[in-house]
């Protein structure tokens, strides 16, 4: 009987954890037939979007490991990647070398921004997520200052195709035509009509291996310790502040590189909007894959990308088919993205509170005399 109860508890925990992915499977299962999209089109799109997004989403894993929650500041890395790409395309470095150069150039910007972000987050302990979220807006202002006013006037930009006609500032879109899908098509492979970006997947695979390896290094272990309990980690002689800053820096650098991969697939930079929503979409995708604020694995990333982007492709068509208005579907997918994040955050916070009150209960039981009083407080809460 005891084992039965345990089993039931386990099944319940599993269901709770995977409720979001299951919900998404249902949404997709309902929407795919209604949308009327052909399976080959759908698979092609999903494979493309996997290549485009997985690297970016993987950048979120390390701060989660360090207990810093969902890094809404990954936008900073995306901005660093964009600045590097703008410069590289003005220098007319094209193709794969251009991409490699942009990745290299994004790193110093990413390190600087990540360091800034980490510093601030250390000052706002306990509210890392909202702070990293506001940081992304703040740095967006700085980014606009640089790109809209300093580029072309202070930072030399030569090409009229990139610069605004007024002589400074960058145009709304910067073409990456000479870099477009160069990485995806480096090793061309088509299986049953599905184009597979082999090289991009190889890069992603390497990053996955690096993350697995990183978890086992001293620094990775330290991060996990910090994520478990900061005080214990500090007592064990870990420099908590430094570890946290490094985790954010790594995340930002990876996001910068991921953004270069993302944009080479897109083929152009939407200078003032490419980065602004990227954080939200990546976080939503990760959560859809079954991750939570304090626990995320590589498996969550892949599952999340597939489910989230299936919904993303299918929703507008399905919405149009049902209501006759394509905008409904577009609003629907945005709503779902936000709702998923909201639900995940609520689940995380309620579980955190439950854990806390459980600990409180234990403490109260230990102090026998005060047991009754402790119970009363529980009831009130």
């Amino acid at each position, binding site marked *: 009987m005891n084992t039965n109860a345990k089993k039931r508890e386990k099944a319940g925990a599993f269901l709770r954890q995977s409720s979001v992915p299951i919900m998404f499977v249902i949404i997709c299962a309902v929407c795919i037939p209604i949308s009327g999209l052909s399976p080959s089109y759908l698979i092609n799109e999903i494979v493309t979007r996997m290549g485009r997004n997985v690297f970016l989403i993987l950048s979120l894993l390390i701060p989660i490991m360090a207990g810093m929650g969902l890094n809404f500041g990954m936008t900073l890395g995306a901005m660093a990647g964009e600045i590097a790409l703008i410069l590289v395309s003005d220098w007319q470095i094209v193709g794969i070398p251009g991409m490699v150069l942009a990745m290299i150039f994004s790193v110093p910007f990413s390190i600087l921004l990540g360091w800034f972000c980490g510093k*601030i987050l250390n000052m*706002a302990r306990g509210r890392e997520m*909202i*702070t990293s979220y506001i940081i992304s807006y703040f740095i967006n202002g700085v980014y606009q200052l640089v790109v809209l006013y300093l580029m072309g006037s202070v930072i030399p930009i030569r090409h009229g195709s990139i610069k605004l006609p007024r002589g400074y500032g960058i145009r709304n879109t910067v073409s990456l035509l000479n870099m477009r899908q160069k990485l995806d098509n480096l090793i061309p492979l088509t299986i049953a009509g599905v184009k597979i970006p082999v090289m991009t997947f190889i890069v992603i695979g390497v990053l996955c291996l690096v993350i697995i390896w990183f978890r086992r290094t001293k620094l990775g272990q330290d991060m996990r310790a910090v994520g478990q309990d900061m005080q214990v980690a500090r007592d064990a002689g870990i420099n908590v502040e430094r570890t946290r800053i490094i985790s954010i820096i790594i995340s930002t650098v990876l996001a910068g590189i991921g953004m270069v991969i993302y944009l080479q697939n897109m083929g152009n930079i939407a200078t003032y909007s490419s980065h602004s929503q990227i954080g939200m979409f990546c976080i939503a995708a990760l959560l859809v894959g079954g991750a939570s604020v304090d626990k995320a694995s590589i498996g969550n990333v892949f599952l999340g990308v597939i489910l989230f982007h299936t919904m993303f492709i299918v929703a507008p068509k399905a919405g149009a088919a049902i209501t006759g208005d394509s905008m*409904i579907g577009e609003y629907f997918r*945005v*709503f779902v993205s936000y709702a998923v*994040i*909201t639900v995940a*955050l609520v689940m995380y916070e309620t579980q955190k509170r439950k854990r806390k009150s459980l600990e409180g209960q234990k403490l109260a039981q230990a102090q026998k005399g005060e047991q009754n009083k402790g119970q009363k407080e529980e009831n009130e809460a």
Partner: protein
Amino acid sequence: MNTNEKSGFAKFIDSFGLPRLIITAFLLLLLVACPFVGADLPTQISNIISRFSWNGVLVLAMVPMVHSGCGLNFGLPLGIISGLLGATLSIEFGFTGPISFVMAILISTPFALVLGSGYGWLLNRIKGGEMMIATYVGFSSVSLMCMMWLVLPYKSPNMVWGLAGKGLRTTISLEGYYNQVLAKFLAIKIGNFTFPTGTILFFAALALAMWAFLHTKTGTAMTAVGSNPVFARAAGINVNRIRLLSVIMSTWLAAIGILVYQQGFGFVQLYMAPFYMALPAVSAILIGGASVNKATITNVIIGTILFQGIVTMTPTVMNNMIHMDMSEVIRIIVSNGMILYALTRKTEAAT
């Protein structure tokens, strides 16, 4: 003697807050520069006052939740949506003129109460993580309403898309409804200077009511809950009920706030417009000297004047001075920088 003076000055900076000092200085600089760059000072000042009057109530909506320890209300869009529902339904039911404003308030109230209760109930379950979840509650509700604006069976030809005959437009003109209804009430006009007496009075009444409320028994209980929840509970205060009340108040004020904003602006903005409306209100009250768990009516007034002052003045002055309109960038950096500053300050009640 000398050292004494210095410490006095340092104390002043401490109490006033360095960022607020910089922002005040910046605004004063803009005002001083105004005549030199050929901008008309009275017009500018009356602009600032009227924009203050539009936004005041929205900023005031921050106060109750800060007092009860729920933090800054990033979920302001939820209240705004109640206001939008009130506005659109009032027009749909065929009310015009000043009556439509009163009806908009009346209709939006039940929505604000219901949505506010749900929101408050949620926030009571996730104590400590309010701000992030509030942000996303706001976002989710705005995007949900985006669908609703399309689907709900509105009929009024002044609001729906002309061609399709259904689905609300993104902006709805309030001409003939409650455009300027408060602002024109007892308005004082001297040359280029206009004073929107009605709107200011409306704001003053609400602010006074808020001030009075905070001095009632429930109001002091609210402050107690915010500053020390453990102590409040020990004193027999029902913490969850007080918090719920504060959230409902905040949501209702946001609903009223957006209606006041609309009567000044002249349009109802639907769809994605409420999305980022929380951020200006949040940064305004912070610029006014509030912190994550402390806010007064004075903070609201000073903050709104400073924030709206900078928002209105920078485009004119900058454009005339260096022919570069950097106001948007300055606004983003200043307002978000201010929020960051507030979030990073150590506060006693931070958990």
